[in-house]
Structure formats: structure tokens, C-alpha cells
């Protein structure tokens, strides 16, 4: 089977977005190794700004590893090695002298399991603002916390109990709190690694709606093992298999008429 590298989706416009979206992230021939084991092979793709891009594929296909290369989260793994280029807004994030802290401020991340700090709701959201010195006054801090909670569609539910423990929130609320916490430092890109896989259908739907709304202001990249979720929330979908990018294109095409037989077999549930 021929697996091609795909620098960009077949089309960067879709029905919902008549104007071409500018490139936010450009990945060029990326290889990734855990020690001697190669986990990603020659990945090339372009992620458009202010749209949702989903990575799908069976377990172990490399989709989460790839997501984590986009904000250098793999750096902390012993023996991990990257070659190739990942450019965000034209700047190579693996280039020498790059500030990883600044990178992670620009590229926020939300994980599968919500991980609020054992602090109050307010302090969870305020945390990143405080340690980065992003608010000059108490009033500004409070306003940013409120804005972030509103953006994460959580404000109404928690505004009367901001100083209660975050751990008292439901699973879905905790996950939206983690999204609010990620948004508080005003990132440009939000990486989401299975953000709804531990949630019930109602909480999942709220997260999906939130993703749909957040793309107005953020570039969103989501990894999901739930193909239907990728279909519902994303504008572009990339299908990974055995560490390679099999196909990347407009979500509606990927789920109605994919180019590669392997993609078709996966989205129709014939394997994976």
C-alpha cells in the first residue's frame, strides 16, 4: 500500500468557510522515536488557523504522540527524539534557543482525564495568569478568570461558588474548568487529547459544542478515538495508521468519500 505524505488537505476551504484559512502549523517530514522504536514516520501536514482539525486512528497509531510534538510535550520523555520540522506561525518550535515555556503558553493543552489542581475553582483558572504575571491588578485577574470561565461555558454553573474546591465539580464541569484554565493564559492553539472520552453523552455534547464555538478564536487540534466525534466537531481530519499519515482532508470528504481504501475501511469499521 502506498502511503503518501500530505503537506496540506486537498482543500482548505469548506462549505462553512468560504475563504481559505491561513496556515497556523506546518509540519514537514517529522519523525519521532521512543528510543530505538520509531513511532512517527515522515509526517507532513498543514493545520489551518481557526478551524478544528481532528486526528483519528486505532490505538497505538501515533495520533497522541503526534499531538504532543506540537507543543513539545514529548520532550519530558527519556529517550524520545524528534527530527523534521514543526513550524508555528512560521517559527520552528524545535529550533535552537526556543523558549518552551512561551511555546506552551501559546499552545495550550487539555487531557483525557480532567486534572484540576486541589484548589478553588477561581484559583485553578487564576493559576496560569498569576505565575505568568499576566494581570496587573486584582480587578484584571478577576475579569480574566470570569472571561475564561465564560469562554469554557462554565460561568453560569460556578459563578456563585468560585471559592469552593474544584474537586467538588462533576467530571464534565472539571473538564470545562481545565479548558478554562488553558484559555486563561490566552493561547492561540488548543490541543485536546481525548477531551471527552471519560464523560457521559450529555457532558460530551457540551464539550463538542464548546469546541465548535472556540474555533472562532482558537486553532483547535483534537485527538479522538471516537470517529463520530471527529465527524461532528472537526473541519479537517487526519487518519493515522502505524505511525504514518494515511490521509488528510476535509472532514466531510474523509467521512463520505475518502481517497484511500485504508481510510474507508477504518471509517466504515472494517478494521481498527
Amino acid at each position, binding site marked *: 500500500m502506498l502511503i503518501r505524505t500530505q503537506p496540506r488537505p486537498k482543500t482548505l476551504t469548506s462549505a462553512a468557510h468560504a475563504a481559505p484559512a491561513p496556515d497556523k502549523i506546518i509540519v514537514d517530514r517529522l519523525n519521532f522515536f521512543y528510543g530505538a522504536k520509531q513511532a512517527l514516520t515522515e509526517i507532513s501536514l498543514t493545520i489551518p488557523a481557526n478551524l478544528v482539525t481532528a486526528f483519528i486512528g486505532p490505538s497505538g497509531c501515533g495520533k497522541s504522540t503526534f499531538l504532543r510534538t506540537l507543543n513539545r510535550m514529548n520532550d519530558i520523555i527519556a529517550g524520545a527524539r524528534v527530527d523534521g520540522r514543526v513550524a508555528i506561525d512560521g517559527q520552528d518550535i524545535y529550533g535552537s534557543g526556543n523558549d518552551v515555556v512561551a511555546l506552551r503558553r501559546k499552545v495550550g493543552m487539555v487531557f483525557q482525564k480532567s486534572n484540576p489542581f486541589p484548589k478553588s475553582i477561581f484559583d485553578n483558572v487564576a493559576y496560569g495568569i498569576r505565575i505568568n504575571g499576566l494581570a496587573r491588578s486584582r480587578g484584571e485577574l478577576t475579569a480574566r478568570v470570569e472571561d475564561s470561565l465564560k469562554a469554557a*461555558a462554565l460561568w*453560569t454553573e460556578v459563578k456563585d461558588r468560585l471559592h469552593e474546591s474544584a474537586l467538588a465539580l462533576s467530571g464534565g464541569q472539571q473538564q470545562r474548568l481545565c479548558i478554562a484554565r488553558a484559555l486563561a493564559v490566552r493561547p492561540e492553539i488548543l490541543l485536546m487529547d481525548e477531551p471527552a472520552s471519560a464523560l457521559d453523552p450529555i457532558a460530551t455534547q457540551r464539550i463538542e459544542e464548546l469546541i465548535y464555538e472556540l474555533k472562532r478564536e482558537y486553532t483547535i487540534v483534537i485527538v479522538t478515538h471516537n470517529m463520530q466525534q471527529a465527524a461532528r466537531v472537526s473541519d479537517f481530519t487526519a487518519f493515522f495508521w502505524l505511525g504514518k499519515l494515511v490521509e488528510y482532508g476535509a472532514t466531510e470528504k474523509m467521512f463520505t468519500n475518502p481517497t484511500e481504501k485504508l481510510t474507508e475501511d477504518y471509517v466504515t469499521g472494517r478494521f481498527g
Partner: protein
Amino acid sequence: MATEYHVRHFQEELEHVKARLLEMGGLAEERVRESVRSLTTRDHGLIEKVLTGDAPINQLHIEIDDRCFKLLALHQPMAVDLRFIVAALKINTDLERVGDLAVNIAEAAQRYLQHPPVKELIDIPRMADIAQRMLRDALDAYVHRDALLAQRVLDEDDELDALKTLVFRDLLAYMLHTPATIEPALDLILVSRHLERIGDHATNVAEDVIFMVSARDVRHHQGEGA
């Protein structure tokens, strides 16, 4: 800055489908009205307008199918949402056929006007009124999810069928008496046949509405006495 949002954008997409179907229904109804008026008023300009004006309906036909196809593929709709989209796909086909039948009526009118009038047209305009009303009611029933109104559309179809038979018998008498009227009279029979078919499409729409609202399949007299 940001506000809170709880609206499901999927519901917005369904509203788009509904709005486009209504637009198409309005166009189809208007074209039926114009085609029959072109015949009754012997208006060649109106005939031409109907004959050349099919493109907007055809474009909507493609667009609505495309929207429904993507909604099915990307949102995996369930229960009433699933029935809504499946109904929309079928109603879309019916409305497109109504548009085609309006063209067929205009073609028959064009041929008919090459001859002197066979008779004063009374029953054909009545049939046109009923067919248009059925179409309008079926679409209203779809918009308001009104199964009772849909049922009324089904009942009206009998009246239309009876009028078609009446028109046929009436014109048969003319043709037997004056063979020169055979050609134009056949065109009037065709018009009545097209109007009866428009009623059948409105009936299909109404059946789809009943299925959408109550998940009850009343086609081919299923569910009678249930």
C-alpha cells in the same frame, strides 16, 4: 468577550434544511400556478417563463440532498432528527418532480394554444387549486410537525382523482363528437393527469410528515385501523 453558548449547531443545520425545503416548496407551488395560468389566460410569455425557469428548483434539489447527506454522515442523527432528515430527502425529490410537472403542463399548454379552445376550462383550474392547496398544506404540516393537517392532505387526494376522471369523461365526449378536438383535448387530459400527479407528490410529502411526527408508516394504506 466570550459568551456562554448552549445551542446545538446541529439544530441550526436542521433549520437550514427546513428553510431551504420551504423555499423550494414555494417555488414549486408558484410554478404550478403559473403553468396553469399560462393555459387559462393563453399567455405565451408565461409559458416561456415556466419552460426556462427550472434552474432554481434544480439547484435547491442538489443543495438539500447534499446538506442531508452530510448531516447523516457527520452527525449520526437519531430518533426524530433521523426521521426529519430522511423525510427531507424524500420531500426534496417530490418537490423537484412537482417542478418538472409544471414544465410538462407548460409544454402541453404550448401545444394546446396552437388550436382553437376546445371548451371553457372549469375543472382544470379547480384541480390546480386543489393540487396547490395540498402542496401548501403538506409543507405547512412539515414545518409545524402537524400530523392532523398532513392527514387532511391525504383525504383531499380523492377529490383530485375524482376530478381527473370527470375531466377525462368530459373531454372524451368532445373528441367523439368533434374529431378535430382530439389533439388539443388530449393535451388537456395530459394537464389533468399532471395535476393529479402533483397531488400524488403532495400526498407523499404528507405521508412523510406523518412518519416524521409519529414514526407511523401510512403509505400503501398501512396503519389503517391501527
